[in-house]
């Protein structure tokens, strides 16, 4: 420091220098802490697979921008389905609402009180009826242990489903083990499944064979350019491309060939010449 008299004004008076130094230090320290926090925030966006968001929840990232962790949805739920995540233990972003279907599923209140109570729109107020909700979708994940797949009659998931015969149906197929019985396969139709988790909750196995999974995990997605021929046919009332020749169907000798396809049905699958393929 100079011992000469200070100039009263100037670009770098000692006061201003001190101020700038302090400001720089404050900004640097906060930037460092902020970077840590941001990293933590990025990691916290990974929701554990068994944790489901309340009905109407925005996509996870938008939800974490909107939800103020107030718990009003939790309070509105008459069945104590929803919980606020506790710091660290639930592996869900601190303070945000979630539920675990196998513990307490959503009872699918008609008027969705949890959504109505949300002050921020983190639960989308456009969801006025519970059947508009998609908290996830049920997937019969374990075909080897599901009793119906084993040829027994359990049907519990099917029967408890509040959207029975829409969200889950039982599809009959032949039992190849006994060769004389049918198997009734619980089949989920994601369009109607709200992800309430009642099926998962009720599955009689020690570990549920049917589980509600987040949509992102459970669902595939057709490429935007995909066209399903049979639907296009319906839409246009005829084939999209004229002049496609329908080749005769081939079938093994034992099996009667299927009935002639309706015009516009997709061309049947024709295996390549397997001998020409990869040889070890």
């Amino acid at each position, binding site marked *: 420091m100079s011992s000469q008299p200070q100039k009263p004004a100037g670009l770098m008076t000692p006061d201003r220098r001190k101020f700038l130094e*302090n400001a720089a230090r*404050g*900004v640097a*320290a*906060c*930037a460092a*802490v*902020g970077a840590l*926090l*941001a990293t*933590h*925030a*990025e990691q*916290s*966006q990974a929701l554990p697979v068994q944790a489901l968001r309340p009905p109407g929840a925005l996509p996870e*990232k*938008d939800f*974490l*921008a*909107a*939800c*103020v*962790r*107030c*718990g*009003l949805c*939790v*309070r*509105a739920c008459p069945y104590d389905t929803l919980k*606020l*995540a*506790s*710091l*660290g*233990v639930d592996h869900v*972003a*601190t*303070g945000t609402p979630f539920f675990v279907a196998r513990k307490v599923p959503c009872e699918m209140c008609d008027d969705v009180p949890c959504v109505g*109570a*949300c*002050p*921020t*729109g*983190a639960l989308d*107020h456009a969801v006025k009826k519970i059947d508009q909700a998609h908290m996830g979708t049920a997937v019969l994940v374990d075909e080897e242990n599901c009793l119906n797949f084993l040829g027994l009659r359990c049907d519990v998931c099917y029967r408890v489903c509040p959207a029975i015969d829409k969200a889950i149906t039982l599809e009959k197929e032949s039992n190849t083990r006994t060769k004389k019985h049918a198997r009734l396969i619980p089949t989920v139709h994601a369009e109607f499944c709200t992800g309430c988790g009642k099926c998962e909750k009720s599955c009689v196995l020690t570990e549920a064979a049917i589980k509600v999974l987040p949509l992102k995990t459970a669902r595939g997605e057709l490429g935007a350019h995909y066209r399903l021929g049979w639907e296009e046919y319906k839409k246009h009332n005829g084939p999209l491309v004229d002049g496609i020749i329908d080749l005769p169907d081939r079938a093994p000798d034992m099996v009667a060939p299927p009935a002639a396809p309706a015009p516009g049905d997709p061309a049947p699958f024709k295996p390549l010449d397997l001998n020409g393929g990869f040889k070890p």
Partner: protein
Amino acid sequence: MTAATPAEKLGAKPAHVPNRKARADVNALKTRERGIWAANRYLILRRLSQALVVALFLTGPLFGVWIARGTLASSMTLDMLPLTDPLMLAQMLAAGHWPEGLALIGGAIVALFYALVSGRAYCAWVCPINPVTDLAHWTRQKLGIQSKGWQPRKETRYFVLGMVLATAAATGTIAWELVNPITIAFRAVVFGATAGLTIVIGVFLFDLVVARRGWCSHLCPVGAFYGLVGSKALLKISAVNRTACDDCMDCFAVCPEPHVITPALRGAPAGASPIVAARDCTTCGRCIDVCSQDVFRFTHRFDPRTTDPAPAVTPTREAV
């Protein structure tokens, strides 16, 4: 500045304060002379107020009588009064979500209240962390811990506040809520998310061991935010009776933001207003509690009354 600094005044030790350095005897004199209530009135009222806030949210889950639902982040009282933390709203907007629902109205009500009454009244009268950091400070005094420890600058909290909003904008999520000890503490009590108490203990230890008054008076972005909201608030402390000050320094010892006292208490020679005007003041009233000379009182920000002798700011009225 002609007024003596507190440190200088400390030299002239009045006889009735036996051991000023250890400060374990803060408020002893008034308690002895006037009783526990007179010496702790606002402290007791504040603890009741903080307990009441929690109680309003707890009657529902405990007894099925629903008064307030939700948390301090956003709540619904008696099914008709929506309240939302405006800082939470600000983070939400920074993260890129425009609220639908009652959050905007609730936020406006809360912001208006603190802007009019006293910004940091939130800290002194509502916040669940305040009893924790007060306890840490009390423990320091009882243990006679002299060292202040790490003392970041008082303005650091504004940088932290900036960081809170910046991380929300950068991550597109309300990132600060992952670690905010205030809401975590409140949810621990009201929603039983007790794992969060670890972070509350962390704040306690930080204030006890690392930094004297470290969290609330230097770092907390929520306190900083409410301080800014209440920059022009009406409810203020006045050192109305400052001529009676006997320099016992008890007010400085108990005040969480002692720098706010000096201009008002020592301002008489300069003719400064007796109002504790700084936005850092939490209007906790602890200075009123401990002052055996009744120097301080609650008043509004435009109240210029003092008992200064000669050129009083206005004609004196009887100040009580």
